[in-house]
Each structure stands twice: as C-alpha cells, then as structure tokens.
C-alpha cells in the first residue's frame, strides 16, 4: 500500500460524521441518544424534556460519530424557541445524517416531519421506536413499504430493550460512507410540480435568496416550504412574492398540496401496518377517569398529597438517624478540640449549620423519587392537560404548568423550559412568576418549621404551601400580563404519553440528578455561608454575647418591618443570607440560635408563634429568587432589567403574603 493510500484510509477512518436525532416530542429521542452514546441524560415520560440540543459521541467500526439530540418538534416551521433550535440547526448546520425517531404506536404524526427532511435532501434514517410496546398491543409493523417508497433505511427499535441498535449503527455507518446521496424524487401532483419548477427558475434570478439558501436551491425544499408555511420565516423579496402571486393561487395550491401529502402519508402508514392491534387498553381505562374535568383535578391534588405524606412518613426516621449522627459528631469534636473559638466554629458553625441542612437529605431524595414517579409514569402531562382550562383564565397554558412542576425541583431549569412557549407575553410573565414555584431548596425550611409547629398536620400544611405556590404563579402571571403588550394566542396541543411503569434506573437517575445539587450546595455555598454567619455572630465580642454581634446588627435593620410579624433579628438574618440559597436559612438558624441541631425545633418554638411561623413559611415560599435563578432570568430576558424587577417584585409580594397569612393565621391558630 502506498503512503498516500494509507493516509487516505486513515483520514477516512478518523473523520468524524455528525448525526442528528429529531422527532416529535416524547417519542424516545433522548432514550435513543443514551442507548447510542452510553450517557445518562434524563429521559422523562412527557414532552419538552429537551429544549436545547445535547451533544454526545460514539464509535462504530473505528469511525467516530458525533450525535446531536434536538428538541422535539412536529414540523420544521418553528414558532417556539425549542422548535427554532431544531430547525436552525438542521438548516444551517452540517449534519451528515438525520435520524428521525417515530413512535410505533403513533407513526402517522412523525411522517410529516420525515417528509420535510426528505424534501430537504439530507441522508435520513427512519427509526420506528417502541416496537416492543406496539407488539404488546398486538400491532405489527412492516418497515419495507416506507423504506422502498421513500428510498431510506427504516429500522425498528426499542430504546428500552436495545432492540435494533446494531442494525441502526450499521445503517448509519453505511450512509456515512456514501458520498453521493441518491435522493428519491417525490412525484407531486402536476400543479405542484409546475409551481416548484417556476419557483426554482425564478429564485435563481435573485442572488440574495440563492446565497442564503444555496444548499437547498437545487432541491424543491424551499418552494415546498413556502407553499406549506408561507414566507414569514424566509425573508423573500417583495417583487419575487408578487411575481409568484400573479402566476399562482397560492392558497389553493397550499390546500392541494396538504391534501395530497395527508393522503400519501395515510396510505404509506396503512400499508406498513400489518396488524392494528387492540383499540383499548389499561391506559384508556385510567385516562377515562384521570382526565375527567372534576375528578382529574381531585386526583391530581390527591397525588400531590400522597407524595408529601410519603415524604414525611418515610423520611422522618431516616432524618432522625442522621440527626443523631451529627449530634454524635459534634460531641466527639467538642471532646477533642480544646481551643474554644475553633470548637465553636466547628461545632456551632459547620456541624450545626451544614448538618442542620443535611439532615433533610432523606426528605429531599424521597420527594424527588415520588415526583419522578409521577413524571415517569406519564401522569404529569395529564395534569397539565387538566390544568390547561384553569391556566387559560390566567393567560397561561398547560405547557406553562409543566414549567411550574419543573420549578418544584429547581427554578433554573423551569425558567429555561419556558423556551417551549411560543407566546412571548405568556413566556415573559411566566419567567417572572416562576420564582414563586416552590423549589426544593426551600424544602428544608418548610420541614423545619412544619415539624416544629404543625407536626400533626405536616403533609396537609405542605400541600397547602405547594397549592398556594401554584396559585401564586398563576395570579402573578395574570397580573404581569396586564403590563406586557405583545400578544398572540397559540393553542396548547399536547400528546398524552402512554402510562409506563417507571424503571428503577430512570427513577434513580431522576432522583440523583435533582438531589445531587443539594449535596453539592451543602459542601459549597452553604458551608461558606455558614462560616460567614458564624464569623458575624462570633465577632466583635468573641461569642460572649450574640445579641451585640454583627449578625444581630444586620438583622435589626429590618426589625421595624418584621416585629409585628413576630420575627426578631435572628429570623431576619437567616432570611437575608437565604438570598444566596434558600437552604442557608436553616443553616443560619442552626448557627444563630446556637443550640445544636437537636433542639433547634424547641428554640424556634420559643422564638415564634404558630402564626408567625406560618407567615415565615409563606414568606420563604415567595421571596427573592436565589442568585442562580436571577442569573437565569437575566440570560433568558437578555438583560438585567427583568432580573432586578424580579428581585424587588418577589420581595414585595412575599412581604404582603406574609402579612396576610399572619393576619388570617392569627384568627385560626
């Protein structure tokens, strides 16, 4: 072998090929991505999990493939942010191969997207996923009619069991080796063909368009795209459009084209399905009740109530064990460390503060485990579907409700997930209202105060807090939308996913991904804040009188505003430091009350009345988003203006709510 040939071969082997995965929402794109790359991206049983593209890689037969997981879309006529991500990527980028993932139980809805990609002329593989579930329902699919008609490889897979993986890899490898793609010429009706020819002929005379869409000018894609979705995204010159309108009745052609496409796809799908399977299942039976307009809402409240009850019942014994472990650690350090200030720093500062937060690990993980169960099983989209009607009264849609639920974990991904909302007015109002969604960082504060004051009705109070949190997001959105001018009404369309028994693996990934941030924060920002609070409470009088410490001075500044609520400087100081991260409120109290974590509950019972504790819970639920959330608001709204607004707005709202709760609570408690 000559040197040059060897070099050529090496280059061929090493050259990276790029593959994109695209498909409708919730068809298993991320599962397929994980299967091919061996990564552990979280896969949820609800649409809209991927709102930004994810990149991974894998090797097959010595060739490296870069794999890009794109957000779920129905067509390439993108209106919302996530759809735009997918469209822009496919049009402007250099993906060598595109894998279109379709659901074996809902094949037809993916075919429109597949058709668009074939029209673009990229190398396409159709993956019909979840064939195992289809088989269970008696549905049998033959991929050859689609494959032969469209001249593309069609693979039957199950991302869950790994079925079809090898075949898919082999096809991707073969396609990557093919230098020239033989594009299947789609035979459109005569009028459409005439239009395409005319369009292509005219467009070549407009250099501006030709250079912008140079990759697609030789194909019919641009003309078909124009026909289907209009010129809004294409920025075509006015005289060009006038010329088209003079020669063709665009509306009539559009209807003809859509009818033809619909019939063609229906025929293609029906010829591929050998056996339909049964038309009802346990899913239908459950859905009949779960999506009932009254019972559905009650069942959703029941589901939340059950999650909170389980969290409190199951986590409490584990939490007590951790509590005992930290007390033991504190006592042991007290015996060994003889330098008073160091002992105080370690025992009253680090162990009381960080340990005071870490004892809530069981609650956090158990809560996420069960919330994960609701998401994974496919129940949450049903809740979103039910809430859509209520949410519409507040200028939001069921899609927004998904973001609120995400916000129960962390406000940062919840705000990012608003990219799926096409209505700009709704999106901005939701971004500014989402900090009211009660994130998990606030959980330790709730648990601490609820355990101290309302232990017999713990789950009920927790449910009340979460329902109030949802109500607050809705009311706030309605209020804010009054001041935002842009508006366009876009209907909420959601495909209800199938009910699935969540796998322990996926639930573990979900729980760990959400819970690990809590552990990371405990070793980072909470530890730093705890040491800082200890320093402020130890100086200037070296721990002899905490009431004249720097911490006390800071908290006293706000006492005129909070005295009537029963909050003294200790409560205020904790709230001030809690702005960095809400868990710090608990670690601050553990340090400031200086009582050791075992009796913090008792110390709080002496410092607060039940009404002021309830007011404090609601204040924490609503007040200032953490720094990470503010930074995300800044990033998503392209400036500090709305982040600063959010800072002030949430503080004012939280203060008003705390006063209201204190007043009403004072009557009943």
């Amino acid at each position, binding site marked *: 072998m000559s040197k040059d040939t060897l070099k050529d071969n090496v280059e061929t082997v090493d050259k990276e090929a790029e593959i994109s995965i695209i498909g409708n929402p919730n068809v298993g794109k991320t599962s397929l991505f994980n299967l091919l790359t061996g990564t552990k991206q979280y896969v949820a049983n609800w649409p809209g999990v991927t709102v930004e593209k994810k990149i991974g890689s894998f090797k097959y037969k010595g060739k490296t493939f870069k794999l890009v997981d794109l957000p779920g879309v129905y067509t390439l006529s993108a209106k919302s942010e996530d759809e735009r991500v997918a469209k822009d990527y496919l049009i402007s980028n250099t993906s060598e191969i595109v894998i279109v993932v379709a659901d074996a139980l809902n094949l037809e809805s993916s075919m429109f997207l597949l058709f668009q990609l074939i029209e673009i002329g990229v190398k396409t593989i159709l993956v019909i996923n979840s064939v195992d579930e289809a088989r269970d329902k*008696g549905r049998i699919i033959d991929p050859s009619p689609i494959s032969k008609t469209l001249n593309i490889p069609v693979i039957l897979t199950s991302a869950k069991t790994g079925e079809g993986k090898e075949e898919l890899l082999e096809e991707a490898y073969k396609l990557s080796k093919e230098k020239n793609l033989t594009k299947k010429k789609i035979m459109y009706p005569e009028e459409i063909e005439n239009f395409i020819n005319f369009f292509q002929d005219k467009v070549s005379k407009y250099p501006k368009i030709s250079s912008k869409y140079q990759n697609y000018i030789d194909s019919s894609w641009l003309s078909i795209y124009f026909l289907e979705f209009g010129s809004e995204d294409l920025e075509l010159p006015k005289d060009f459009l006038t010329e088209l309108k003079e020669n063709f009745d665009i509306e009539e052609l559009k209807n003809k084209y859509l009818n033809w496409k619909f019939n063609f796809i229906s025929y293609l799908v029906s010829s591929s399905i050998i056996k339909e399977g*049964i038309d*009802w299942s*346990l899913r*239908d*039976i*459950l859905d*009949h*009740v*779960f999506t*009932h307009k*009254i*019972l559905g809402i*009650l*069942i959703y*409240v*029941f589901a939340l*109530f*059950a999650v909170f*009850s*389980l969290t409190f*019942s*199951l986590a*409490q*014994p*584990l939490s*007590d*064990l951790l509590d005992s472990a930290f007390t033991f650690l504190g006592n042991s350090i007290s015996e060994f460390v003889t330098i008073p200030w160091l002992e105080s720093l370690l025992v009253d500062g680090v162990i009381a503060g960080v340990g005071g937060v870490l004892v809530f690990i069981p609650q956090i993980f158990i809560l996420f485990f069960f919330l994960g169960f609701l998401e994974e099983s496919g129940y949450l989209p049903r809740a979103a579907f039910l809430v859509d009607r209520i949410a519409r009264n507040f200028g939001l849609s069921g899609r927004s409700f998904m973001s609120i639920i995400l916000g129960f974990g962390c406000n940062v991904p919840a705000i990012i997930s608003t990219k799926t909302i096409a209505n700009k007015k709704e999106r901005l109002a939701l971004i500014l209202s989402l900090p009211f969604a009660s994130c998990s960082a606030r959980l330790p504060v709730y648990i601490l105060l609820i355990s101290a004051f309302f232990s017999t*009705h713990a*789950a*009920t109070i927790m449910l009340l807090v979460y329902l109030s949190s949802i109500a607050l997001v809705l009311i706030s959105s309605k209020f804010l939308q009054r001041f935002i001018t842009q508006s366009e009404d876009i209907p909420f369309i959601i495909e209800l996913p199938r009910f699935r028994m969540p796998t322990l693996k996926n639930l573990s990934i979900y729980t760990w991904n959400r819970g690990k941030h809590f552990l990371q924060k405990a070793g980072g920002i909470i530890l730093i804040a705890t040491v800082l609070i200890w320093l402020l409470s130890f100086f200037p009088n070296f721990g002899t009188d905490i009431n004249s410490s720097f911490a006390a001075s800071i908290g006293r500044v706000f006492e005129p505003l909070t005295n009537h609520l029963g909050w003294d400087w200790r409560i205020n100081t904790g709230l001030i430091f809690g702005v960095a991260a809400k868990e710090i409120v608990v670690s601050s109290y553990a340090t400031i009350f200086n009582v050791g974590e075992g009796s913090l509950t008792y110390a709080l019972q002496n410092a607060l009345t039940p009404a002021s504790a309830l007011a404090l819970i609601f204040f924490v639920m609503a007040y200032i988003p953490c720094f990470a959330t503010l930074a995300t608001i800044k990033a998503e709204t392209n400036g500090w203006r709305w982040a600063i607004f959010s800072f002030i707005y949430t503080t004012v709202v939280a203060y008003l709510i705390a006063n209201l709760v204190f007043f009403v609570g004072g009557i009943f408690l």
Partner: protein
Amino acid sequence: MKHKNLTLSLIAILSIIFMLLNIQKNFFYVFSFFVIFLISIYGFSNDNRIWYHKSAHIIVSSFIGLFLLAYEILDILFTMLAGEFSEINLNIYVIIFGILSITIFFLELRYLRKKRNEALNKEER
C-alpha cells in the same frame, strides 16, 4: 365483574364510612376516601360512548384503595425502622379497604382481559 352498580355501591358506602371514621385521625386518609367516594359516585352515570365507563371507575377507585394500603404498610415499616414501636398505630379501616380493593381491582382486570380476548378472537375470525 358483572355487577358493576353493586361494586360501585360497595366502594361508595365503605369509602364514605371510612372517611368519617378517619376524621379525627388522619386528614390524608379523609381526603383520599373522599376522592374514592366521588370516583365511585361518578361511575353510576351512564356514558354510552365508552363501554368500559363503569369498569374504569371501579379500577381507579380500587387502585387508590390499593395505594392507601401500600402507604399504610410503608408507614408502619418505617416507624419500625426508627425503633419507635410504641408509635405504631395500625389503621384497620385502611387495611380492610385495601384488601377489598385488591380483590375488586384484580377481579375487574380479569373481566376486562376476558373482554379483550373475546374482541381479539373476533378480529382474528
């Protein structure tokens, strides 16, 4: 099960009784039994478009009853794990309702599967 209205009546009556009996004990159970009661009551109505309407209400209400039994058992197990044996307070109403729910749930599921098989056989023929 063939006697749908009878099954729904049994669920409705027991759930409302157990709801009242739990008022002083546990609000979560009160709310849960209330939801079960409403689901069974709605099941009495006729929905001609969906042949499994009554079955669906029986399945879902008994499913919640089954969940409550699992919750009660887990609660007891975790209380034992903490070594707080004196705190164990068995809620007999939930246990009774849970066992009844398991029976109803599986009987109804069996009935539905039988219907499904009949439909499949018809299709094949």
